[in-house]
């Protein structure tokens, strides 16, 4: 059984450690720090931590002001509420090209019982549309820690998307994470599953199910959705001739959208998208919702079998 750790817990710890190493790190939150885990940083460095209350537009533009003056600003809230400040981010972070790291937690349907309002399935779509914005969806706690560090080291705007629930650890502690570089989690020859976030673990399970049915599936962890690792994508599209994308996000505009854009231009390949099918979520346990909204390993395996029927010789 793999270890189960919430990516937001990994974030809280990584941010605290970064704060100890670098006095230029500042953190902002909008009254959710005990959920986003920025509170760990806040307790140790109260003079570098700014809770602006329930005011996400103010959160993002204030982060911009701090970054303007040489700070590395991390701004956190839930993915759904942070999107309220998207236009402030568009202007004061993306257009201004500021060193702000927008790190959201509680993305996707595994938010669970809070229901549709909290289950943000559209954030990858809107944040990757911003010029100058790097978008990272870590697969697990290990990758989260590395992504947070890499984001702090990168000069410019970054959006990192984390979840609420505990998720399986699928990467080794020694894994060399690079922004913009996909990781081949498993090789295969019949179909390549391009996944991000929680769906990397589900895709690895799906690959095992497919193996039992005599199908060899590769699994690619495309943690950086922008800039997409087009080279690796095209390489595996060429090797396998069939692509599945899998994300805890709408099938519109997220990883699936990004992959479809690149494939269509570079190497048109039969493709199937696994994700929330252009609908809102609802209250339920994370497992119930994953089942109902089609995000389990079984669903990924079904998508792989489906796309194989469209594969050309």
């Amino acid at each position, binding site marked *: 059984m793999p270890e189960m750790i919430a990516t937001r817990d990994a974030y809280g710890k990584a941010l605290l450690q970064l704060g100890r190493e670098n006095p230029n790190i*500042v953190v902002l939150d909008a009254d959710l720090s005990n959920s986003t885990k920025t509170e760990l940083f806040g307790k140790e460095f109260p003079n570098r931590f700014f809770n602006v209350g329930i*005011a996400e537009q103010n959160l993002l533009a204030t982060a911009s*002001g701090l970054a*303007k*003056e040489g700070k590395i*600003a991390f701004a956190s809230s839930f993915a759904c509420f942070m999107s309220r400040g998207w236009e402030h981010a568009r202007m*004061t972070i993306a257009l*201004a090209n500021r060193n702000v790291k927008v790190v959201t937690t509680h993305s996707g349907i595994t938010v669970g019982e809070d229901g549709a309002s909290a289950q943000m399935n559209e954030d990858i779509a809107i944040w990757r549309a911003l010029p100058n914005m790097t978008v990272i969806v870590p697969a697990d706690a290990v990758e989260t820690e590395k992504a947070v560090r890499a984001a702090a080291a990168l000069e410019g705007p970054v959006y990192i998307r984390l979840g609420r629930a505990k998720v399986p650890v699928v990467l080794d502690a020694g894994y060399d994470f690079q922004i913009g570089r996909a990781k081949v989690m498993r090789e295969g020859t019949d179909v390549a599953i391009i996944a991000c976030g929680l769906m990397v673990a589900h895709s690895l399970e799906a690959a095992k199910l497919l193996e039992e049915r005599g199908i060899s599936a590769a699994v690619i962890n495309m943690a950086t959705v922008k800039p997409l690792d087009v080279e690796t994508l095209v390489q595996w599209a060429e090797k396998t001739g069939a692509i599945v994308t899998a994300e805890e996000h709408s099938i519109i505009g997220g990883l699936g959208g990004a992959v479809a854009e690149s494939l269509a231009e570079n190497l048109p390949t039969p493709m199937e998208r696994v994700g929330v099918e252009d609908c809102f979520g609802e209250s339920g346990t994370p497992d119930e919702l994953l089942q109902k909204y089609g995000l389990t390993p079984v669903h990924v395996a079904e998508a792989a079998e489906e796309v194989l029927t469209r594969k050309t010789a």
Partner: protein
Amino acid sequence: MDAHYPPELIVDLQAKAKEFRREILKMITTAGSGHPGGSLSVIDILTALYFHVLRHDPKNPAWPDRDRLFLSKGHASAAIYVCLAYAGYFPKEWLASFRKLGSPLQGHTHLPLAGIEMEGGSLGQGLSVANGSALAARLDGKNHRIFCVMGDGEIDEGAVWEASMAAAHFKLDSVTAILDANTAQQTGYTKDVMNSEPKADKWKAFGWTVYEIDGHNFEQLLWALEPERVVTGKPTFIVARTMKGKGVSFMEGVIDFHGKALTQEELKRALEELA
């Protein structure tokens, strides 16, 4: 208020502002578009800031200890560009390139033009950015001032009030916000579109020290902008009562000149009045 400034200083500032009005109208007509009404209402405020109040160095726009000025009403770009050019941040020749393809003088203020501190054009964001800048200054032990100029239509935006609460909550006494209260926005007078009176009372209630002045009177502007006006632990808000299109008789109080350039004929008449 007890304001004693040398008459030469006041006369000089008035003369500058008059010249700047000519330049603003010329550059907007040359460009064929822009926001003349709101540029004329704010130009006295900006003249007072750039030519008396601000500690700044036009030859060193990134001087870490400079006072910062955030033009949150970013559509008054013509006004700030003229001030910056005449202060020596960049050549006056650039003014004629306003809004043209490739010009550093973009339609709304755009980084990294020397002297510009924020991306303008989307209202309601500047005070938050100013607050962030002030928080950084405090962390770094600096004591320069931070100014933010807003419009009275702009304060319709909820984000302004988020920032207002935050400035008081965080005791940002380095922040002084100036409201160019020219009574008009794009589709009508503010009292008809979205009434925000009583303005001074609102900002007092939000925890600011508030002064209400005639935004076209330099003695009052200089007085309100003095560091002595700041109360420790509280940000400062100046309601500067102004008039859209101030300085040109056929523009004063006229809604239409919010976002419309003067024709050549209108420009000629305006320049005659501003001679």
